């Protein structure tokens, strides 16, 4: 690549110039690394400093910029050069060297030299992005016509998007339309409200940007953001439309009450669910289903299955408010009646505390933490409930005309007949025995319910637990593991209509954002600037299908032989496919397997002493080191950091590269994985750990200790643990002894 011209710019501010031998660094750049341009500046991020670089871009023909200064996470606005024309590489001399190492020590200088070598190598191997921009469709399809779907549709339409609203049933409004009353959502939180869903329905119907399809289900979705082909089915007829993004707002269903026989459901007529209670109240009076007698005493059983490993292991978060509401209207409809609420914990999140207070103030609402020990029907038709009143520490019998089971919320993404506490991993489905040439194997057959995605991995959104669509809960709510498809409302996690309205707005915004990013050929998040795409050298593909299976976002489909078929706009650029590929045929313009291998090779491994290379995730581990640096913590000097987009991109060849070069240990620092994962790409750090599990067998065969390679999980806020993690690993490797390949 003769047209490459690398310019290295070393900043000497922020203590760099005082702690390092800058001349030595210049020698590394211009001497052994052969950079044609290398300049130092006392204040590189100033206009004056940036102008030095710009001069060289314009006049010297420099097209690859190595900024040897501060962390890549700061001053991004200053070192912002056109990514379609230039490669910009940030070498971290400040946080990763001078702020975490003693000044003017030999070891400190060695780290800086290596970092510069690796940065120049990376820049040399990287190419500017080549954008892939296609015409996209900007219509947003909202699935579900309840309060969430209606709100999402209105929000999208108000933002100028065309909207298609698909509703399975014959009318809009969902559960909100069936509610007798709602609980208050504003001060003073004491009066119940009439649901205002009708206004919303009218607004949607009257909005000419929203096309409503009732009695309609989705029979297939194929394609990618900006160009989904959706087949809609309506009473036997079908229609295919093109849309850009999807908001899934299909809501919830009550937990199957037939499983609550231990709480009397099905056994006694006067035991009803909270949904049935709402229906009863809509008819105007609370009375015993058995004989129609006006109810004088109603007992609510909270957590009717929720927070119980046998039923719904999670809290539905709304049922406490719902029961308080129902207790309130039991009292409104009959001022002589009493309402008992037996709860595990009264959970009225946030300002709903005020509603709890208001309900508590009612003379006839009796609350206690307690447990239902049993119940039986009395001769007068009422139910006598045995309660362990835990606030009094005594057992008592309470007479109730109606017992209401506060049943929990189950996501509508869960197909009928599936139990939330007993689901197959990742994709909801059934395990089937399959005859293959290798004998009978068990294979998961995912069950379609709503979206019918024509994706290689599954027809529905992957779940993490209990059927709720998986997403990075903290950083990217509404996101699902299918780019361009956003979940909102109770389908995503249990929530009330008030929260659902917020959720609907958020998801609408994400859908619009996705279309905007896609139209520019950029990743949706977290690499929102990234215009690179994975590229496949398919002539070397062995159809092993690892990339198509491991991609956290279902980007890749397959042809019948198993060759990956790209859907670039589904991609989030994590590089998990790149790490998975044993043939190393997948790369990005500025991120390749060879690039990291070359960086490892560029490191000057000392002949003596334990030496470790550390692969770090750019999202959490990298800033964690920066934070340790801000706090001036000293780090072990025998480590070299290489930043990856995600540990999911770890290719096993790097392990071989590192160990064969005589590096004694390889430490991977990435996000927590498992149920409470923090990986920005959902599965990246988990995939890395699975791959490492395999490489360790290989290491054993090579007579190298498996312990030389280790992955640790580190959250961004655990930066203070970093020095100890590094010390411990160093000690461990030091105890194992030198890599026998050292010096070869």
């Amino acid at each position, binding site marked *: 690549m003769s047209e490459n011209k690398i310019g290295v710019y070393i900043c000497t501010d922020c203590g760099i110039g005082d702690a390092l031998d800058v001349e030595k660094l210049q020698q590394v750049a211009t001497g052994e690394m052969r950079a044609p341009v290398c300049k130092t500046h006392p204040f590189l991020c100033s206009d004056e400093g940036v102008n030095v670089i710009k001069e060289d871009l314009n006049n010297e023909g420099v097209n690859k910029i190595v900024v040897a200064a501060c962390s890549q996470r700061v001053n991004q606005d200053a070192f912002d050069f056109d990514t379609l024309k230039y490669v910009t590489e940030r070498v971290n001399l400040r946080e990763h060297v001078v702020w975490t190492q003693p000044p003017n020590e030999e070891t400190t200088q060695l780290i800086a030299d290596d970092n510069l070598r690796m940065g120049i190598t990376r820049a040399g191997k990287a190419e500017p992005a080549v954008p892939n921009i296609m015409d996209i469709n900007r219509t947003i399809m909202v699935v579900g016509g309840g309060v969430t779907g209606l709100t999402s549709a209105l929000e999208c339409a108000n933002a100028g998007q065309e909207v298609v609203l698909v509703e399975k049933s014959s009318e809009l409004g969902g559960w909100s339309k069936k509610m007798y009353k709602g609980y208050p959502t504003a001060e003073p939180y004491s009066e119940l409200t009439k649901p205002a869903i009708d206004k919303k329905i009218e607004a949607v119907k009257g909005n000419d940007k929203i096309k409503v399809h009732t009695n309609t289900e989705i029979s297939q979705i194929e394609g990618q953001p900006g160009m989904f082909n959706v087949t809609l089915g309506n009473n036997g007829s079908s229609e295919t439309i093109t849309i850009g993004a999807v908001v899934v707002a299909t809501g919830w269903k009550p937990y199957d009450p037939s499983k609550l026989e231990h709480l009397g459901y099905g056994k006694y007529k006067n035991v009803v669910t909270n949904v049935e209670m709402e229906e009863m109240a809509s008819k105007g009076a609370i009375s015993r289903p058995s004989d129609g007698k006006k109810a*004088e005493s109603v007992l609510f059983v909270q957590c009717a299955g929720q927070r119980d490993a046998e039923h719904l292991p999670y809290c539905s978060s709304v049922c406490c408010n719902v029961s308080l509401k129902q207790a309130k209207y039991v009292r409104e409809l009959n001022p*002589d009646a009493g309402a008992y609420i037996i709860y595990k914990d009264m959970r009225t999140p946030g300002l709903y505390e005020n509603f709890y207070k208001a309900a508590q103030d009612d*003379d006839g609402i*009796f609350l206690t933490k307690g447990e239902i020990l049993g119940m039986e029907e*009395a001769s007068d038709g009422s139910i006598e409930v045995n309660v362990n009143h835990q606030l009094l520490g005594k*057992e*008592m*019998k*309470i007479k109730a005309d109606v017992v209401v089971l506060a049943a929990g919320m189950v996501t509508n993404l869960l197909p009928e007949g599936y139990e939330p506490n007993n689901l197959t991993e990742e994709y909801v489905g059934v395990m089937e025995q399959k005859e293959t040439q290798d004998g009978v194997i068990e294979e998961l057959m995912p069950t379609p319910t709503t979206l019918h995605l024509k994706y290689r991995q599954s027809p529905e959104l992957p779940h993490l637990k209990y059927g709720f669509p998986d997403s990075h809960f903290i950083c990217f709510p509404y996101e699902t593991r299918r780019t361009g498809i956003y979940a909102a409302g109770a389908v995503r996690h249990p929530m009330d209509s008030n929260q659902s309205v917020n959720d609907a707005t958020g998801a609408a915004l994400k859908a619009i954002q996705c279309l905007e990013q896609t139209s520019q050929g950029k990743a949706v998040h977290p690499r929102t600037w990234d215009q690179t795409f994975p590229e496949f050298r398919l002539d070397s593909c062995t159809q092993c299908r690892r990339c198509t299976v491991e991609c956290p976002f279902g980007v890749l489909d397959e042809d019948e032989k198993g060759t990956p078929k790209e859907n670039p706009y589904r991609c989030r650029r994590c590089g998990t496919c790149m790490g998975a590929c044993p043939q190393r045929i997948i790369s990005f313009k500025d991120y390749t397997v060879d690039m990291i291998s070359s960086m490892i090779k560029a490191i000057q491994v000392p002949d003596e002493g334990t030496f470790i290379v550390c692969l770090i995730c750019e999202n959490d581990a990298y800033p964690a080191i920066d934070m340790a640096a801000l706090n001036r913590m000293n780090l072990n000097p025998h480590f070299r950091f290489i930043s990856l987009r995600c540990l999911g991109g770890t290719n096993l060849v790097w392990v071989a590269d590192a160990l064969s070069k005589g590096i004694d240990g390889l430490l991977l620092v990435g996000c927590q994985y498992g149920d409470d994962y923090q990986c920005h790409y959902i599965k990246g750090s988990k995939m890395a750990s699975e791959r490492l599990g395999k490489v360790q067998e290989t290491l054993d065969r090579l007579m190298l200790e498996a312990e030389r390679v280790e992955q640790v999980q580190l959250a961004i806020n655990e930066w203070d643990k970093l020095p100890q993690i590094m010390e411990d690993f160093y000690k461990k490797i030091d105890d194992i002894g030198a890599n026998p390949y050292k010096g070869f």
Partner: protein
Amino acid sequence: MADETVLTPDLGFIKSLKGAGAETMKKCYQCATCSVICPLSPDDNPFPRKEMIMAQWGLKDDLANNPDIWLCHNCNDCSKYCPRGAGPGDVLSALRKIAIQENAFPKGLGKILGEPKMIWLALLIPAIIFMIAMKIKTGYFFQIPEGEVVFSKFFPISLVDTIFVPIALLVTISFVVSIGRFWKSLNKNPYKLMASGTILSGLIATIKEIVSHSKFDKCDANKDRVWAHRLVLFGFVGLFITTNWAVFNLYGLNWESPYPLNDPDAVAIFGSEAAAGLYRGVFKLTGNASAAILLIGSIMMFANRVKDKGFSSVSSSFDWTLAIMVFAVCVTGILSEVLRLANAASLAYPMYFAHLIVVFYIIAYLPFSKLAHMVYRTTAITYAKMANRDVV
């Protein structure tokens, strides 16, 4: 064991609790700050948290038989620290009122007299009784006698005895019945009644505690009330002694009020007029000093109730009634004496009549008024000492 009674909503009871001064009880969310802050609450199964939920739920029987509400001295530290303004101190004092009514014998009378608007009827009853008695004895319903003011000329001592002795007897019977029931109900408690000591030793320890006000002294938020209560208690004790002394003077020494020093019986007993004078002086001093102590105490009680303590402490009508009656008995008694000495017959006799009415009110309605606390509290503290639930 599950309670055999089946709980049903009792909204009427909850309303009456709220009416009795427990308006804030529903605000409690069971954090138990009150139980932690209370200097008088035992470590095990402490009050007033559990009483708050009993009140919210309207568990009438549990509340009536609860000895712990009597261990509370209403110092209101709990109300001061309650994060929800649930006023456990006020709730407990309302519960005590309800407990008195529920345990009173005969029960109906307790309910009637607990009503604030019944106070006029309650005062009218003794007035009518006295007037009828006077009519029978003296021929007049209300006749102010001539000459030097001597109260027995207006309302003969024999009438006092014929009315008050049976009343005292009835009061005693009422207390025996209701305290007997209360004491028995304590056996249901998880704390064993006879865990330590005998009733006598428990009672002695309790009386020591009452005399010293050692528990009451632990109060922080409402410290001034301790002295007020102490003075009122000692004032009453002094007057009780004086009254019995007077009975002794009359029947033992045959020396009748106004205790003339030249009374031959007295001289015969004391040997000289001077000795009789000394005896009478000590006797009178005891009575007057007790009255003065009671007056100071009752004024302090008023002051404390009026004074804003910076936390909400609601005084119920039940509480006010007693405070007013104590003050009234004191003022009418002292004024009767002053007016008698001034020989202002037209004022002295009516004042004496009023005094008798108030005394009747206090004694006859004792099992139903707030003053009944002296019996319930004594019982409950004795029980607490015997059941090892005493806080030292």
